Each structure stands twice: as C-alpha cells, then as structure tokens.
C-alpha cells in the first residue's frame, strides 16, 4: 500500500512496490486518456529551493496530465523561505493547501526533515549531492521498458561518480536485482565514495570493476549511464575546468558497443555526449526523460491513492 507514504530514499519502497508503480506507468503510457482525470480536484505543491527545469516540469506535467493542479515556488527568494521560515513550518503550512508535496533542496536530508513533520506525502526531488529517487524510478522504468526486466545486466556508469546523486541512487536500487555487474568509469578525483562500495556493492555481492576510460569497458556493457560533471558541486573552479570534458561519448566509441546497448543520461548534458550520438538508435536519454514523466504520474497516483 503506497497511499500516504513518502519517497525520500530509493530504498523506501520494496521491489514489489516499485513493480506496481512501473506496471501503472506502463499502463499510463499505453492508455494516457484513461488517467487524464485521475487527480481531478487534487493539488501538488512543488517546493524548489534550488533551480531545476526538467524535474520540476516533469512533476508539474505529470500532475497536469493526471487532471490535477500545481502550486509552488521555483526559487526560495519568491517564498516565505526568504523570511527565514523553517522547513517544518513550510511543509505544515503547505499541507493545509495541497495533497502532496515535491521538494528539491540544496541541503542533504531536507526532504527527510519535511517528511517527519508532514501529514501529506513528501517526494524527494533531489537533496544536494545525496539522493534523487524519482530519477532512479525513471532510470529503472527506462531499463525495464527497453530491456524487458531489471536482472542480468552489465551496467556502466560514467563521469562524476563522486558527487553524482543519480548514480548513487541507481546503484543502490540496482543492488536489489539479480546478477548486476557494475563497471564504474571515472577519473580518480571523481571516483565513487567508499561507502557506496563498502555498504552497497560489497554487502550486496554485486560484481564491480573500476576503469578510467570508456573504451576499455564499452564492449561488454548492456547499459551505459553517462553523467555530467556538475559545476555546482565543486568548491574550486580550476578542478571543474580540468575534469568537465574528461569523458566525451562519440560515434567512434559507440562503434565499439553492442548493437543492443543503450545510452542513458539523467540530463542536462553538457559535453559528455556528442550531438552526433543523438541519431544513434541506442541513444535513449530523451525517451528516458519522457518515461520520467510517466513514472512520476504513476508515483503521484499511487501516493494519493487515486485510480
């Protein structure tokens, strides 16, 4: 039963609960008209304490396509937050007006704090470099749609594995499926944190190897998950400039990959995927963005308990 629950961490829901969300998302994809009034009379609050385009639009489009309405702010300066209001007060006030809340916040754990005080479901839309569970749902639905299931796969994750919250959440979520082989592709400075290796990869018995280049791994991959090196996570601009173009996936590298490998990316991209790759049938990052909206529709419907 997902009605009334919060989604803060990708592990908050069991694999079976996730399957019910994915099943619903697939049904929405097939018959969107059946769900166009599911959330009529319901309001979703989007509390974005940090700029975001696609995640906020994706949630807002999801709610609107379910027939619901949206209130919220896209930057804290335009809300009472700028007057120094606490997260606990904001969420309890918003809960008087809305049926569910989506929160993005630069501080790690902020949506968790909101969920502790909130009488309505809180969805974490990204908290600093920590978690981004609806991106994980998006990624899992994309893999399930394209590959048919979520087991028995070699998944390469490339780029900023140190600060990349989408990668951390994805690895956590994949650890619950069978026979997942991970290939971690990153420069030394952006290697995955030790705790992900020790507490997730090793504890769950996932096979994993770490390499420096795309070329040495791409041939064995079923999925290549590219990520952007995020300027906003660096304290030092020089380090960012040195590392931002460390990986660029282009046609030449794609020639080394399997015919049925898919390329995913949480977007936005900067330079890490050359535009020439967009026309390759294995480029799935734009369909992935669309699945993101459908999976958010399914999530909202489940948390609100609507048909």
């Amino acid at each position, binding site marked *: 039963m997902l009605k009334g629950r919060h989604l803060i961490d990708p592990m908050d829901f069991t694999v079976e609960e996730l399957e019910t969300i994915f099943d619903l998302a697939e049904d929405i994809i097939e018959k969107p008209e059946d769900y166009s009034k599911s959330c009529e009379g319901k309001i979703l609050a989007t509390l974005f304490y940090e700029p975001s385009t696609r995640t906020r639009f994706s949630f807002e489009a999801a709610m609107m396509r379910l027939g619901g309405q949206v209130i919220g702010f896209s930057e804290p300066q335009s809300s009472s937050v700028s007057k120094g209001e606490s997260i606990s007060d904001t969420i309890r006030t918003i809960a008087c007006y809305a049926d569910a809340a989506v929160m993005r916040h630069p501080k790690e754990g902020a949506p968790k704090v909101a969920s502790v005080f909130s009488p309505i479901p809180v969805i974490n839309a990204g908290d600093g470099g920590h978690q981004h569970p609806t991106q994980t749902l998006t990624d899992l639905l994309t893999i399930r749609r394209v590959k048919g299931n979520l087991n028995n796969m070699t998944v390469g994750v490339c780029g900023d594995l140190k600060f990349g919250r989408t990668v951390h959440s994805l690895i956590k979520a994949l650890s619950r499926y069978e026979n997942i082989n991970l290939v971690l592709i990153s420069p030394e400075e952006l290697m995955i944190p030790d705790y992900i290796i020790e*507490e997730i990869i090793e504890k769950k018995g996932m096979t994993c190897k770490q390499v420096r280049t795309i070329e040495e791994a791409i041939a064995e991959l079923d999925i290549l998950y590219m990520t952007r090196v995020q300027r906003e996570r660096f304290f030092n601009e020089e380090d960012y400039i040195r590392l931002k173009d460390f990986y660029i996936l282009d046609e030449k590298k794609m020639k080394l990959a399997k015919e049925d490998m898919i390329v995913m990316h949480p977007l936005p991209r900067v330079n890490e995927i050359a535009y020439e790759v967009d026309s390759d049938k294995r480029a799935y990052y734009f369909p992935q963005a669309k699945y993101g909206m459908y999976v958010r529709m399914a999530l909202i419907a489940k948390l609100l308990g609507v048909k």
Partner: protein
Amino acid sequence: MIKITSIEKGIVIDHITAGLGIEIFKYLKLDNANFSVALIMNVNSKKQGKKDMIKIDNIIEFDVTELGLIDPNVTIITIENGEIIRKSKLTLPAQVENVIKCKNPRCVTSVEKYVDHVFYLVDEEKREYRCKYCDEKTVFKGV
C-alpha cells in the same frame, strides 16, 4: 594489586578498556563527587590483558547509551547490602540522539537548528554511525 574496600551500596564499572577509565570518570563528573570513588587503572585481566575499573560508593544515574559510545565493552555492576543485584553489559546503541552533531556542512541539520541530530549504527565492529538525514559517516571515539 591495590586493595580497595568493598562497596555496601554502589556501582562498579568493570571491564573498561585500559585508558578509557579516565574518560568515563570525567564523563560521569566523578571529580566533583562527595562520596567515595576509586578509579583503578591497568588492572590485570585474563580477558582484556589490562583493564580499568571505577568503584562508586553510591547509586548514581547516568545515560548508559552515551557510556556505551565511550566504551561498549564495559559491565555495570550494581551493589546493594554488599551483594551484586544487577550486572549489565553495555553494547553500542542502535541509535543515538543529540549526542554529537553532524559535521557535514551540506547536512540539513547545519541550518535547521530544531532538528534532532540522530545517528544510527551501521557497523558495530568499526563503531560506525550514519546521520539519519544525510548519511554522513561518524566513528565514535568518545562523547
């Protein structure tokens, strides 16, 4: 071994890891006690090699959770009428609240001051805890 008179009514904190006795002594503020207290250091121990002990000639109350963080190996022995009435072994607490603060500058607890600092145990052997909110790792080496 130095002879310390036995206790009629009080507490013995036994099996303290050698060197941590003084930490526990300070934590319990026993330097301000107006009753007899003995801190015995480097006592020979079959199990531990060397250990510290504290004998308190009074029943005092303290937070065993925090004591467990200083040294999870200790045994608390309560004595009444010269007899042991209770022996309890401490373990690392599964969760601690407001004992230490999260050091991660990106953690929400750094700005939302009313939020309790909650840590949960992830590795007993390494004494590792994680912040409930941001998952930052902390190793307790004293309170």
